[in-house]
């Protein structure tokens, strides 16, 4: 059969179906296969908060967007090229994100009268039949029927058979994009090795999907997307939460401290706990506490005892931890608080992304309570920033807040992982008794204004610490007015001093001087970078700088900002970093804000750049 092979440099596929249809697994499998093939990629899982939302409804649609290519990829992409829909609701929810001329792969069984009704589609209308999709290329197939046919001899029940439907779609797409199936076969072998019947069923359906495409003449085109020209080196695929967990473990190893994570399950942060709890052979102790408060308090206890203490959560949980964060800063103990941000306020949008906890992190405590704040930009950057959070906490004896968000926490990208020997040193020296009989001063400070860490079990360093204001050096309770102001300013100065050992900010794209700087922080990295590259290609004088250190800012930030006529700050909130920037540098920065639980598209940022500079 004559088949065309079309070469593309990048493709965006969205897998969408019922939350029980296995779309996340299908997406992850395709992602890993693309990664191992050498494509650059970025992903965006988008699922409902309900574990099993009502079947067939719009609320129950679970999606997974994958952008992969032979070129550099910075975002999961704006509109998709291929939309895989397992039912009518999935099509209805996602059609607006499909580009004109794009491909729809539809499971016709998901468009029966019942599914159409559940999706809220008026009677008598069915997009697959009524010609309303004429601007797209529609590939219809009855996945359910073909899956059942493939497993007719298996002796399995219909319900079990139907669970393998996603493998049919995956097999079909592997054919379409010339992908080998080995990775998924290996995965299935590991997952179902102990259940040979289910293993065989999944493998059979995967191959059935592939063979279906191979034998049907109507599928005339296959696509080729070559490996990306990335920096030479060895890569792996990584998700943000996984990277955060690994960054923490790496810091524990490099500092020689036991890692203790006291935490409470919360979306979208729980995967950090899951990952950490798998690595007990690294001496990692995880403690699933009774609530968010106990989570951070247990961690403070561990930190007092000489562990590297970490607590992980998301907005509502961080709110509960606030008082204890104040205690940690008063005790001046190292502690890492990870906030995987989600849509707020209150319970908000648990599975959606937002950057609206920045002001909470910087200012949200009683009293004058400075805590360093840093933020990760991409899934793999979570590793580096988690490591940095530990390094700062241990170097300056302070709690540190690390901000990530649902978008990068669940997103994946290729990662040129480091060698452990390349990671920055983290030196920890527990205090030892002087031996000359002088009294131990628990709040005596070193050149970084950091205090000694004297852990229980150390002879002759017995001392008491607490949340009441302390006297300089002795740490005894003090109500002296002048001492209070001195200590308030001391704690602030200590945090400011961190700027002495964090890197300067260097533009990611463009130059140190010019017409416009797009200043970002956190997960907007990819969208900003893509849009700025596009604008520069069109001749606009625009650069991109990305803040990873928010409190304190890098020392050269002011200088950089003053070098540009316009400063644009895109944020997934109503304008938070911009308040801090305006306050500190008194510049007329402009914001670009979006609060929809969704990331920016590169196009949205590009339009704003164009509008300003045209």
């Amino acid at each position, binding site marked *: 059969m004559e088949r065309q092979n079309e070469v593309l440099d990048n493709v965006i596929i969205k897998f969408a179906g019922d939350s029980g249809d296995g779309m996340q697994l299908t997406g992850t499998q395709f992602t890993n296969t693309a990664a191992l093939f*050498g494509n650059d990629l970025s992903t965006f899982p988008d699922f409902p908060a309900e574990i099993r939302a009502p079947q067939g409804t719009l609320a129950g649609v679970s999606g997974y967007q994958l952008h992969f290519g032979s070129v550099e990829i910075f975002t999961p992409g704006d509109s998709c090229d291929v939309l895989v829909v397992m039912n009518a609701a999935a099509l209805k929810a996602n059609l607006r994100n499909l580009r004109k001329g794009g491909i729809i792969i539809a499971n016709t069984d998901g468009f029966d009268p019942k599914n159409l009704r559940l999706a809220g589609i008026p009677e008598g209308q069915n997009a697959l039949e009524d010609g309303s999709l004429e601007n797209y290329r529609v590939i219809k197939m009855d996945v359910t029927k073909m899956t059942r046919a493939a497993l007719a001899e298996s002796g399995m029940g219909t319900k079990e058979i139907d669970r393998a439907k996603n493998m049919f779609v995956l097999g079909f797409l592997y054919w379409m994009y010339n992908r080998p199936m080995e990775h998924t076969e290996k995965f299935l072998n590991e997952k179902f090795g102990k259940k040979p019947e289910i293993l065989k069923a999944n493998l059979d359906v995967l191959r059935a999907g592939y063979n279906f495409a191979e034998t049907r003449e109507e599928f005339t085109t296959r696509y080729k997307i070559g490996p990306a020209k990335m920096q030479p080196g060895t890569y792996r695929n990584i998700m943000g939460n996984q990277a955060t967990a690994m960054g923490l*473990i790496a810091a524990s190893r490099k500092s020689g401290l036991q890692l203790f994570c006291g935490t409470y399950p919360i979306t979208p942060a729980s995967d950090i706990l899951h990952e950490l709890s798998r690595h007990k052979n690294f001496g990692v102790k995880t403690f699933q506490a009774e609530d968010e408060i106990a989570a951070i308090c247990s961690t403070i206890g561990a930190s007092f005892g000489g562990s590297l203490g970490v607590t992980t959560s998301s907005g509502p949980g961080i709110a509960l931890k606030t008082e204890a964060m104040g205690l940690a800063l008063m005790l001046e103990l190292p502690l890492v608080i990870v906030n995987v941000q989600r849509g707020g306020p209150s319970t908000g949008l648990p599975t959606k992304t937002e950057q609206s906890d920045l002001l909470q992190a910087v200012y949200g405590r009683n009293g004058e309570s400075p805590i360093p704040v840093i933020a990760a930009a991409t899934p793999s950057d979570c590793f580096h920033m988690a490591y940095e959070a530990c390094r700062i906490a241990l170097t300056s004896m302070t709690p540190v807040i690390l901000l990530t968000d649902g978008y990068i926490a669940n997103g994946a990208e290729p990662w040129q992982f480091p060698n452990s020997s390349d990671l920055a040193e983290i030196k920890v020296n527990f205090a030892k008794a002087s031996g000359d009989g002088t009294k131990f001063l628990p709040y005596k400070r070193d050149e970084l204004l950091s205090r000694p860490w004297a852990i229980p079990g150390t002879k002759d360093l017995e001392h008491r610490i607490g949340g009441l204001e302390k006297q300089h050096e002795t740490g005894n309770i003090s109500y002296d007015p002048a001492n209070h102001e001195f200590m308030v300013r001391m704690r602030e100065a200590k945090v400011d001093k961190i700027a002495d050992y964090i890197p300067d900010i260097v533009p990611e794209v463009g130059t140190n001087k010019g017409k416009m700087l797009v200043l970002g922080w956190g997960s907007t990295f990819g969208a900003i970078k893509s849009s700025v590259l596009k604008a520069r290609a069109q001749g606009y004088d625009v650069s991109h700088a990305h803040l990873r250190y928010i409190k304190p800012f890098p020392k050269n930030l002011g200088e950089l900002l003053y070098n540009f006529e316009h400063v644009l700050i895109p944020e997934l909130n109503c304008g938070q970093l911009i308040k801090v920037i305006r306050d500190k540098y008194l510049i007329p920065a402009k914001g670009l804000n979006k609060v929809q639980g969704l990331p920016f598209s590169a196009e949205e940022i590009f339009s704003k750049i164009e509008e300003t500079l045209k």
Partner: protein
Amino acid sequence: MENPNIPVEKFTAKDLTTDQEVRWCPGCGDYSILKQAQTVIPDLGIARENIVIISGIGCSSRFPYYMETYGMHSIHGRATAIASGLKASRPDLSIWIVTGDGDGLSIGGNHTIHLLRRNFDVNVLLFNNEIYGLTKGQYSPTSEEGKVTKSTPMGSVDHPFNPIALCMGADATFVARSMDRDPKHLQSILKRANEHRGASFVEIYQNCNVFNDGAFEVFTEKSSKKNETLFMESGKPLIFGENSDKGIKLDGFTPVVVNLGEGVSANDCWIHDERDRVKAGILSRFFDNPKNPNHLPRPFGVFYVEDRGCYEEKLQQQLTEAKSKKGDGDLDALLRGRETWTIN
């Protein structure tokens, strides 16, 4: 870790006093508790540097400042949570939690019950004065119904907690009650609490002479103590009264007071067995208001003891098992993951 080959350096009660002035109100029951702790702790065979005292907020929570050990005066209600993390990460330490009825049963009630069910090997000393002292006199979760205080001018409508029954319900493995005014008894209970491997809960009746003076005087004053209290000793009959002339018998599951001598001897009474959960449950309910006629005496001593594995040991075992199965963690292998690809 304690090295059994090196004898622990001896220290005295005096070595446990700090340079900080004790600032409880004169006449406060806390002074006695501090004194008993300072008397008992040097004899426990624990190195001073391995002792950590953690408190929350409240009058009792000033305790760590007066003990020359490691200590933390933390935030309201959270001493138990902080101690949980410290014990989980440092099983070698001897950890004492000092809390009160407001700190440990109101704002921190949740952490208290969870610490008990997890059974960390720590000692919880709950100073119960049935009032909020540090905030100057509001009713607490252990104040009796109808209590008139600053925040309840018409009397409290709250039903109080029975701390001992609460701890039994939380599956605590060591549950005891003592009082500030009986130094010998308190010392013996502190020793027992320390000996127990697991979470030891000790409720200590403590008089707040400023805001709730005499709350426990019926149990502590000579004139009424013998008739109103029941000092439990395992293996011995439950006997009380001015001349040890009264006893407790069980009529089915119902405890009844009997007069000894009228054809009833001490041996006919309920013999206390601190390992009997059902009977400990019944004893925990000896909680009547002493003003009620036909009330039962208030028990003191050890209600219940059980041997159960401690959280920190089980956690440590999992780490040991993981290391023996997978080998000590290799950071580079972790970073590399299972699948990689190389670009030349």
